């Protein structure tokens, strides 16, 4: 039996605590202990980006991050983005722009896009492409995803104006 260690994180703004197995990944902890299945286990190699989350404001891969190293950290995932039943502008843009087909890469894409928009509210197309470079989609051919991120940025700036 693997040693159990306590893990306290702020998950999408809510303080949570669970015991996790020492040496296990944040992806396993989120999905199996914290019941947040929005980050996906795709390649478990750091290649596909489906497990992308934001830890203390920085984009990270949950499959390559050990859970116990996140003790005390703030973790954001796609499941925390809708507020009171209202979708986040990124989620709305993805839905309306058909930026998801099978949907497996979508939570990671949305996290990578959110990290960009948090830093650069009105990115260029090239900045969006660079920001999504670590996320693989095998359905859409990327164009609808890039367009959705640009659309969400436009919607955000309208709201702010």
């Amino acid at each position, binding site marked *: *039996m*693997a*040693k159990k260690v306590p893990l306290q994180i702020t998950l999408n703004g809510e303080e949570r605590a669970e015991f996790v*197995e*020492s*040496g*296990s*990944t944040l992806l396993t902890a989120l999905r199996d202990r914290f019941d947040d299945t929005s980050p996906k286990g795709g390649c*478990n*190699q*750091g290649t596909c*980006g489906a497990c*992308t989350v934001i830890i203390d404001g*920085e*984009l*990270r*891969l949950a*499959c*390559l*991050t*050990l859970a*116990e*190293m996140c003790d005390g950290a703030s973790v954001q995932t796609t499941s925390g983005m809708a507020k009171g039943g209202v979708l986040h502008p990124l989620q709305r843009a993805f839905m309306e722009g058909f930026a998801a087909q099978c949907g497996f890469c979508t939570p990671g894409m949305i996290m*990578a896009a959110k*990290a*960009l928009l948090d830093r650069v509210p009105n990115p260029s197309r090239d900045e969006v*492409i*660079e*920001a*999504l*470079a*670590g*996320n693989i989609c095998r359905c859409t051919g990327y164009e609808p995803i890039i367009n959705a991120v640009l659309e969400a940025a436009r919607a955000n700036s309208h709201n702010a104006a």
Partner: protein
Amino acid sequence: MPLSLRSFGTVEEASAALKAPNARYLGGGTLVVRAANEGDLTFDTFVRATDARLRNIEITGSTVTLGASVTMAQIVKHPALAFLAPAARAVGGPAIRNMASVGGNLFAPAPYGDFAVALLALGARVDVGGKTVDIDRFLATRDESRDVVSAVHFELPKEGAFRFAKVSRVKPKGVAVLSIGALIEQDGAGAVKAARIALGCMADRPMRAKAAEKALIGSMLTEDGIAGAAATVGEGTEPITDPVASAWYRAEVLPVHLRRLLLK
């Protein structure tokens, strides 16, 4: 097999713990946690050092010191290291660059290790196990090393003296067909006085193109001047074969990319 993580305040304590045969040092996790995920049974204990100095970038005079846990993202953002940003940006996507460390890249097997190629071209020195060794020597003996790398040092190159290229088929992020780093010192007339050329994917780890370096001495960086370097850059190489490219292909295109880099 159950895994566990042991964290230590200092590099020395982590080094001592790393002497256990089943222990592996954990930097950013992009190589070691990946190995665990892939079912690597050669270790069951992650060891790490939490000393905050490992994340420091220091520039004293013309000497740069990068702590081993400095990430690629930190280098991309650092205003005094703009010349190195292309090499740091060559590593992974944005999430990987927030994790991947300078120390870890020194151990990355080909086709990875693009940043180590840049460090080899810069003639970096590596702090490992309480000693400072040349990066050439470090790379040659890294498989036997059971010590922790704590930092690397190098001199800031003169404006325009450092060049780097990573060639990949998928843009902007793709595994390297090859990568080249070059540090070239020229005299007032433009003739090459000294050159260090480092290659990635041309062996199982970054290597020097010593014949090409020699061929460049005294030459101008013109089509004719670099012909000798392009003709000899493949000497001593044993390129890897992987799904991205065969050894034959890598060997064929190496002189082309060296020429483009030197004429840039």
